[in-house]
Every structure is written in C-alpha cells, then in structure tokens.
C-alpha cells in the first residue's frame, strides 16, 4: 500500500530536485507523445534541446536564447518578489504592453532628432508606464480591498485594446500607407536598442535582466525588505506583528514587478520587435509566470528557467520545420513541463511511504 504523509519540514533537497525531475519526466512523456505522432522520439527531443545549443547553426541560435530569455527573466524576477509575499500579479502582459507603448512613444516624440538622451528617456518612460499600470490593481487593493489577481488580469485586455488603438492612431507610421503599426525603431539610431556586441544577442534588455537578478538576489537574502517579503508570504500574521506594513509591501511588490515588465516591453519594442503593432505582445507576461515557478521564485533559478523556456520555444520551432511536428504538440510539451513541476511539488511537502502504517487502524 502506498501512502502520502506530510513532511515535518519541506524537503530542501526535493525543492532543488523537482525541477530537474520535471524536465526529465517531460522528456520521457514528451517522447511518448512524439512517438505516438510517428516521429522518432530521440531525434525530436534532441532537436528541441540539443540543436539550438550545440547543433550546426548554434552560432545563430545561442544569441537567440538571450533574445528570447531576457524578457522572460526580467518579468519573472519582478513577479517572483510578489509571489513570495503572496501578492499575485497576473497582469505582467499588460504592464509589458504599456511599458512598450510608453517607451516607443517617448522615442517617436523626438523623431527624427538624434541625441544620446533619447534612449535613457525611453527606458525611463517604459519603466514608469509599466509601474503605473501595475499600481492600479495595487492601489485598488490597498484602498478598496479588491482582488489583485482579477484586476491585474483584466487590465491585460485593456492594455491590448490600448495597443490596438495606438497602432491604428496616435503612433501609426505616417509613411505606412494607412497600414497599422508605428515607425520601425530599428531604423532610428537614437532609439534603437541595438546589440551591444554584434551577433551576440546581447542588448540592453539582457543587461537589465542580469542587473535585476543581482539586485533581487541581494534584496531577498541581505535586505530587511526581502525578509519582510518572505515572512509575509510564509506567515502573514507574524509579519504584521513584526511591524511589516502590508499596504506598503503590496504597492512595492506590484510596482516593482510592473516596472520590470514595462522595461522588458520597452527593450523589446526598441530592439528585436522594432515597432508597436497590434500583435506586438506574444505572451511573455504569461509565460514568465511559468518561469517564476519553474525557477522556484529564486533569482538564479529564474535565469535557468528562463533559458530553458527559451530553449523549448526555439527548439520547438526547429522541430516543427525539420521534423514536421505540429505546433500543438510543442505546446503540449511545454504544458507538460509546468504540469509535472506542480505535480512533483507534492514531493517537497509530502513523502511517499510504502507498506501499511505501523500503528494499526
């Protein structure tokens, strides 16, 4: 007989082992899925995980890992702060959009002036835009006790409408023959978030993500505020007795996560994406939630998780065109990863015992 019993303490070993285990299980079951589709499972898994990093064209794909991973990490770092404290910002996608709109608008306002001050101003605008968008659910929660999960999520759809409106109106390229979409910032040197070293994928967004990781690590392990965040998440009552002001903490966590999401959007629109368009957002804000949990809400873990997710996206596209795997199969594969991770979380807090209990019933 198999029983599941609570551990007296969550297992530290399991906390680190489960993400690895989840990846391995995903590979096994993903392999079964690919085999069921009539593809060679080993080849498919190798294409997804090996090809981008060590394959023939890895000189191109490796930089792409940074391009794809940087926004995920940047957003996930901010989300993790809140998640640790039990503050659930689900609307990073919206904050990402608003950050991009504000950043791009700032740059386009100066077009075609060239100046070294334009890009820093855009960074500032993107950060402030994302921050304000995230503070809306924050203030509503503090003042009226609304649910930040719902409000932040709903604001994603508001942001999407705003994005459509901007692409069709205010920010529309006047030389675009009436088609939607802004001017391409890649062709506006002062506003372009170009690669810092050519063909490395290293743009300012990657740098910002690394800085965010370092600051978040210090904040969580060395700073009083980080302690307050952890205590609030683990024991809210104790935190209140310990003098933590919950309202300030809510505003801080939402504000910072919005700020980072806004920055991610701004770096994306000024760099890899290039322009504000109706379909600008591709779900980084939602995928970052997976990244945050896959990385155990730990800054270093988030970097690894962000790169892993980026890898499955890039490898997934390669598998589609080289092996003819359908896109849906790749999405199922990615979904499995989160599923196994959450399922295996059980092992952190519980242990599996075989045999009948010694104390007779």
């Amino acid at each position, binding site marked *: 007989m198999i029983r599941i019993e609570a551990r007296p303490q969550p297992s530290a070993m399991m906390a680190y082992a489960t993400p690895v285990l989840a990846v391995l299980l995903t590979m096994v079951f993903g392999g079964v899925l690919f085999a069921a589709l009539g593809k060679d499972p080993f080849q498919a898994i190798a294409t997804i995980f090996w090809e981008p990093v060590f394959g023939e064209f890895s000189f191109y794909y490796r930089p792409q890992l940074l391009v794809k991973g940087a926004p995920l990490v940047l957003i996930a770092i901010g989300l993790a702060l809140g998640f640790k404290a039990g503050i659930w910002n689900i609307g990073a996608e919206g904050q990402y959009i608003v950050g991009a709109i504000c950043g791009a608008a700032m740059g386009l306002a100066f077009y075609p002036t060239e100046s070294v001050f334009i890009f820093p101003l855009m960074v500032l605008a993107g950060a402030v835009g994302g921050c304000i968008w995230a503070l809306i659910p924050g203030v509503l929660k503090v003042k009226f006790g609304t649910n930040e999960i719902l409000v932040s999520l709903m604001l994603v759809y508001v942001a999407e409408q705003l994005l459509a409106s901007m692409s069709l109106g205010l920010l529309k390229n006047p030389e675009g023959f009436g088609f939607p979409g802004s001017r391409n910032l890649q062709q506006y040197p002062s506003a372009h978030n170009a690669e810092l070293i050519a063909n490395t994928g290293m743009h300012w967004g990657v740098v910002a993500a690394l800085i965010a990781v370092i600051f978040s690590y210090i904040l969580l392990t060395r700073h009083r505020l980080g302690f307050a965040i952890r205590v609030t998440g683990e024991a809210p009552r104790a935190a209140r007795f310990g003098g933590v002001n919950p309202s300030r903490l809510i505003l801080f966590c939402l504000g910072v996560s919005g700020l980072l999401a806004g920055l991610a959007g701004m770096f994306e629109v000024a760099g890899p994406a290039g322009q504000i368009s109706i379909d600008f957002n591709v*779900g980084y804000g939602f995928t970052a939630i997976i990244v945050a949990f896959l990385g155990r809400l730990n800054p270093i873990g988030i970097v690894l998780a962000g790169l892993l997710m980026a890898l499955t996206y890039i490898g997934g596209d390669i598998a589609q065109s080289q092996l003819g795997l359908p896109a849906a199969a790749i999405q199922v594969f990615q979904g499995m990863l989160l599923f196994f991770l959450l399922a295996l979380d059980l092992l952190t807090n519980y242990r599996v015992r075989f045999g009948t209990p010694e104390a007779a019933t």
Partner: protein
Amino acid sequence: MKLSHLLATAALAVGFAGAAIAEGHEKTKVGFVFVGPVGDGGWTYEHNKGRLAVEEEFGDAVETVFVENVAEGPDSERVMTQMALNGADLIFTTSFGFMDPTINIAAKFPDVKFEHATGYKRADNVSTYSARFYEGRAIQGHIAGKMTESNIVGYIGSFPIPEVIRGINSAYIHAAKVNPDVEFKVIWVYTWFDPAKEADAAKVLIEQGADVILQHTDSTAPQAAAQEAGNVVTFGQASDMIQYAPFPRVSSIIDDWAPYYIARTKAVMDGTWVSTDTWDGIGPGMVGIGEITDAVPADVKAEALAMKAAIADGSYHPFTGPLNKQDGSAWLAEGETADDGTLAGMNFYVEGIEGDIPQ
C-alpha cells in the same frame, strides 16, 4: 561603431550564405511561415493546400517545410532565418505582420527568394502577392442585400487595415445597390483567428438584428453561431467552409494560392525568378467563389454568377463610380473605376456606411 556593426553584419551574411551553399542540396527547398494553425479551416488552411499542391506538382524535385502559429515579430525572424540556414531556396511568409521581418531576413540572405503575402515592401529578393478579395466581396454583398429581411448585415472585421476596409466597402456598395435600406454593423475583433472571439462577435451581431453575417476572420466559429441561431446567412471566408452548406453558408470566397505557388517554385527551379508584385482576382483564379447553394433564390444566384463572369472578364470593376466617400465628398465620377494605388491604401468608408474606422 556603425562601421564595425556593418562589417560584422556583412561577415554574418557571408557566413550564412556559405552555410546555405555548404548544404549542397539538389532538391529545391520551399519554406512556409504560417501565422495560424494549418487546421484553421480558413486562411492558413488554404496556404497549406497551396504548399501541398507544390509537393504534388513537383514530387521528389522539391521539399517543403512549414512552421505554423508563428508570432509576428522577432519569432518570425528566427523561423525564417532557421529555414534559410537549413537551405531553403524560396520562403513564403503568409501574413501582413511578417512584412518587416521578411525584409530584414531577406537582406541577410541575398541568395534566398522571399514571397510576402499582402504586404507592400519589396526588395531584389522579396516579392509581394495578394488576392483581390474585394471582387468576391462584391458578389457576397449582392447576395447579402437580396437575402436580408431585417436589412441589417453584420460584418466581423479583423483589423482596420486597407484590405479589410476594401472588403467592407465592396460588400456594402453591392448590397446597397440592390437594397437601399441595408445597414452594415461592423465589429472589430483584432485577430485573424480566434474562434471564441469570432463566435462572440457573431452572437452580438445576431442579437442586434443581423440576419446576414460576413466575416473577415479565418475560423468557422461564426458559421457555427449562425447555425445555432437558425435563420442567419453566412459566407465561407478564405476557405470554402462547405461543412456548413447549404445553410447557413450559402457561398464563400476561396483563396486559391496553388497556381501561384507552383509558378513561383517553378521560376526558382528554372532560375527565372524575379521580384514582382502580384495582385490577382477572380479572372486568373486566385479568388474563387464557392458554390452558391439552393438556399439562395435562383434569380439572385443567376445575378451573382453573372457578376462573377463580368468581373472575371474585366467588363465590370466592383469600384465603379459614381461613388462618394463617407463624409459625402466625391470619390469616383460616373463610370470611373478606382485605381490600384487608392485601393491598396484604402482607409475610408464609402458613403452610406455608418460608424468610424477605429483610429
């Protein structure tokens, strides 16, 4: 810094080109970048049929690859690069949003030919192609104007871009011609493919009294919503959507990309490919009109088919004056037809349509 960047890019391009040649493939490799899933039953489905037609036509002489559900933006650049690196000779990118990415990647792979659907930016190795869907819309408008009893026609718009606005205008002109009381209600859903949103839009339009629904989105969800409502007429979009015939689907606009894809692949094989801009309609067969079912009265069907024949042989242009713009200003004089430039960038409604184009 600029120069070093330029040099590095050049070096990369040479590296890419070298890699592509090193493949040493004798088959012609054709790549397709799709914005939706191949099973959408509409836009991407038809492009994929074109791809399969290329395979059938040339057999072992070609190899085709595709990636579906590609997001417009940096992801599409990566997918195109990946195809080019793996030795594609010709790459079709089949959504408007792939325009700038296609131009970017084409610059890095001068030896690979690119074909971008529905865009307006070209280069030495980038062609553009699109279909004159508005010709099919004229026929739909005629049938819609005749068949509506509530005099309210619902229209599910995807994005307020010229291609879609052109379709609304063309349908309205021909509906109003046979039914001066007709009114168009347009809902913008800001997506090409989202069954849930499309179904919602269809239901809202039906609640507002529409008994004919036209759609410029790719899923069959509006057809299903109309079927549920019972007495609402629809038209297949991009694909025939024959599974909803004979009612609610009474006809359809079918995109037939196969002849074009075969011709362009052939041109690459023969080494005769040059950058062009193709805009074909009913005449050359790029736009097809799906079977008009018996739910349409015989006389209306005959008129619709006559209009189709007239458009096909060039004796009738759907945008023929006298036509005014929505604000009442004159656009086309009696007998004058719209030029392609105006049509390509169309950003205004014709007189009689209510509401504003979202700005």
